[in-house]
């Protein structure tokens, strides 16, 4: 026991998600499907192609940042900056596009900015020895400031239609935004679950000292995790800009908690070494479905919050029960 139990006083010992992980997330998938079935019966609008496309589009942004966040959390870290990176990068990409850069260059440069932010996080955590919470809180605050300063608090409209149309388009009936989730999830899955670097991420989260003594370069692994997270947040920022057609420094506010919540609902442990790529995906779909369902059922927005809170408890409770029985 030690680690997990020692630090997580009462959190029941959860099993790691390598190998049998997929089976484990079945409960969660089951709950998601149950909600979908319930909503299909309760409304005649839920089970329509159009609404499903909406659902996919809505979940896409959260899913992408939740996957990145998961990399960080598995190393027993946390990335509070994702929301701010989204806002900041939406501004960057909008400025580049309006400055006449071609779409591909704007996107690449913005992703590069994301990578730079991730490396800076790694630097603060590894080289300066700052707690991840503090390091990413500081950049969260500062990045919003820089974004606001660059735009003077205004929004930057993107007039490049090719860019904004993308978020509305679909391929083979599936919204482009959801294809982007797949585009991210597949390499993320390979990296985390199939490659040796993924193994190292788990090892660092489980016992950094043991990992180090086994020859794992712990610093590089931490740099890697924060870079993945920041890069995916930058990507989500680009997609947000495409979706709302503007760059706004304040967009993505509060999404850090959303992404952590999606990840934890998806079975990630904040104490590290437990988590998967598919878990946060399902987690973000669950949260999106709650919001979408409440809108379709036209539930009073205040009740909507109460119900969301209650459902989070219920969903995670059932998921925990199932895990424990395993």
């Amino acid at each position, binding site marked *: 026991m030690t680690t997990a139990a020692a630090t997580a006083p009462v959190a029941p010992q959860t099993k*790691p998600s*390598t190998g049998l992980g997929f089976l484990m997330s079945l409960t969660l998938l089951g709950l998601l499907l149950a909600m979908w079935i319930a909503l299909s019966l309760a409304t005649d609008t839920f089970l329509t192609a159009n609404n499903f496309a909406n659902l996919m589009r809505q979940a896409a942004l959260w899913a992408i940042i939740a996957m990145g966040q998961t990399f960080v959390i598995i190393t027993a870290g946390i990335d509070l900056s994702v929301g701010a990176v989204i806002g900041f990068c939406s501004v960057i990409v909008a400025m580049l596009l309006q400055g006449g850069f071609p779409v591909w260059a704007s996107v690449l440069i913005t992703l590069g900015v994301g990578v730079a932010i991730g490396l800076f996080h790694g630097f603060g955590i590894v080289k300066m020895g700052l707690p991840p919470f503090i390091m990413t809180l500081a950049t969260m605050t500062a990045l919003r400031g820089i974004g606001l300063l660059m735009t003077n608090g205004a929004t930057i409209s993107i007039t490049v239609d090719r860019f904004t149309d993308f978020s509305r388009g679909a391929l083979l009936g599936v919204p482009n935004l959801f294809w982007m989730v797949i585009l991210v999830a597949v390499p993320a899955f390979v990296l985390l679950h199939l*490659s040796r670097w993924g193994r190292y991420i788990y090892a660092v989260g489980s016992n950094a*000292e043991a990992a180090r003594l086994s*020859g*794992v370069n712990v610093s590089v692994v931490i740099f890697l995790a924060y870079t993945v997270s920041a890069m995916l947040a930058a990507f989500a920022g680009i997609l947000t800009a495409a979706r709302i057609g503007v760059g706004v420094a304040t967009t993505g506010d509060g999404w850090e908690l959303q992404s952590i919540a999606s990840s934890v609902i998806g079975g990630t442990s904040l104490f590290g*070494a437990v988590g998967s790529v598919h878990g946060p995906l399902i987690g973000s779909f669950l949260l999106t479905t709650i919001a979408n369902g409440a809108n379709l059922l036209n539930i009073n927005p205040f009740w909507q919050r109460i119900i969301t809170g209650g459902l989070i408890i219920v969903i995670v409770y059932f998921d925990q029960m199932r895990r424990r029985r395993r």
Partner: protein
Amino acid sequence: MSLAETTGTHGSGPPPDRLGAATPILELRGLDKRFPGTHALKQVDLAFLPGEVHAIVGENGAGKSTLIKLLTGVYPRTSGEIFWHGRPVALATPHDAIALGINAVHQEVILCRHLTVAANLFLGDETASLGILQTRRMERAAQAIIDDIGFRIPSGVLLGDLTIGQQQLVATARAATRGTKFLIFDEPTAYLTRQEADQLFALIRRLHRQGVTIVYISHRLEEIFELADRVSILRDGSLVSTARIADTDEPTIIRGMVNRSIEDVYHKEEIPFGPPVLETRGLTGRGFQDISLTVRTGEIVGLYGLIGAGRSEFVQALFGRHPKTGGSMILKGEAVTIRRESDAIARGIALVPESRRDQGLCLNLGVGFNLNLPIFRRLTRGLVISLPAQREHADRQIRDLRIQTASRNALAANLSGGNQQKLVVGKWLSHGADLYIFDEPTAGVDVGTKVEMYRVFAALLKRDAAIILISSYLPEVYELADRLHVFRAGRLVASHSHKDADHETILAEALGT
């Protein structure tokens, strides 16, 4: 199984006179424990008599620690009954056990690293006046207790700053002071040298004289003959036999444990030495000074010393875990400075660290994961890790070291202590290094597996590797080392060739007397 027939618990005749009263202080009937995938204890019937020292032995994973944990309310039992002075008791929570005066020193130190030694000693039993903790008073009391036992540990330091051996001593002092009626030691000497072990034995004898019933678990059989009145053998979760110590002998016990005979424990082959693999000249760093020694291919160099003598710090510096501050290191004829662990590994050094929990294992990850961690690079095909190769390697280690686990995917945390230790050793065995450093490799490992490990050592030597072996168990280094260096307070104070000095001399050198 003649042993079982003659000395089953229930069938045993009147207890020996010196054990006094006939009603057992604690009696187990049909005690059973299942974990998911493992039947750890199978219908165990066992009686502990008041005032006896009762040893329990068995292979790694036989169920000894599980038995202790059921007696101390750590785990709930699956079925069976427990009687205390003849009355059935629940023993469902640690609190129940404490209330009865049952206390244990668990195999793994289960204490709070962030609290001081004194705070740990009195945890759950603090001295307070008007609700205010008397921290000073407790510190002084703790120091008195520790000094009285003869351990040398300051009571005001954080537990996390102590070496694992010292932590085990704190756990011992803590259990001993709780005014217990029934005290259990689960491999208390795994990290202790003779010197500390002697202090521990003195303590046990004193408690024994005071009428405390003692259960003692160890893989060092001579300790059992030194201390125990009776011995019970567990195999595969079942009780094999209980016998009076006077009625049995070492080979019988070993046969009861492993179901076969083991003669030559310290198997040693004549392997010719080759060129030096490692030379250190005046190497200095945190915890050690001015260490000069040479390790050649085919050679086992043993390091002996008391707790905190600086052996572990020395080898960790060799491995790049800590920086050296002076001296030089020559590896395969080349002066090198090793800055990080991955350098050391790339240069052909492997380190099996001392503390399996802190340094050796990712406890909440799988058995296979841990075994493969150092060699994921080698298991990678293209971009991804080859799952068959990963499985194959893990299974081979599990087989070769007879690691007892429900599956390759079981969490390392769910293995028995000795089996965890096998993981720590096993993960380096297929690494193919030139210099293997083993820091307490056999801590908590049963005698059968030890023999396997020693054979593996020999095989490594034959492949032109060199070995540095640290052990706090003098017989082990004494028998196995081709050259034995004695450390004291961070310095290398004496060196011997194979068996050219006796135990007493070496001990005296380690102690500085």
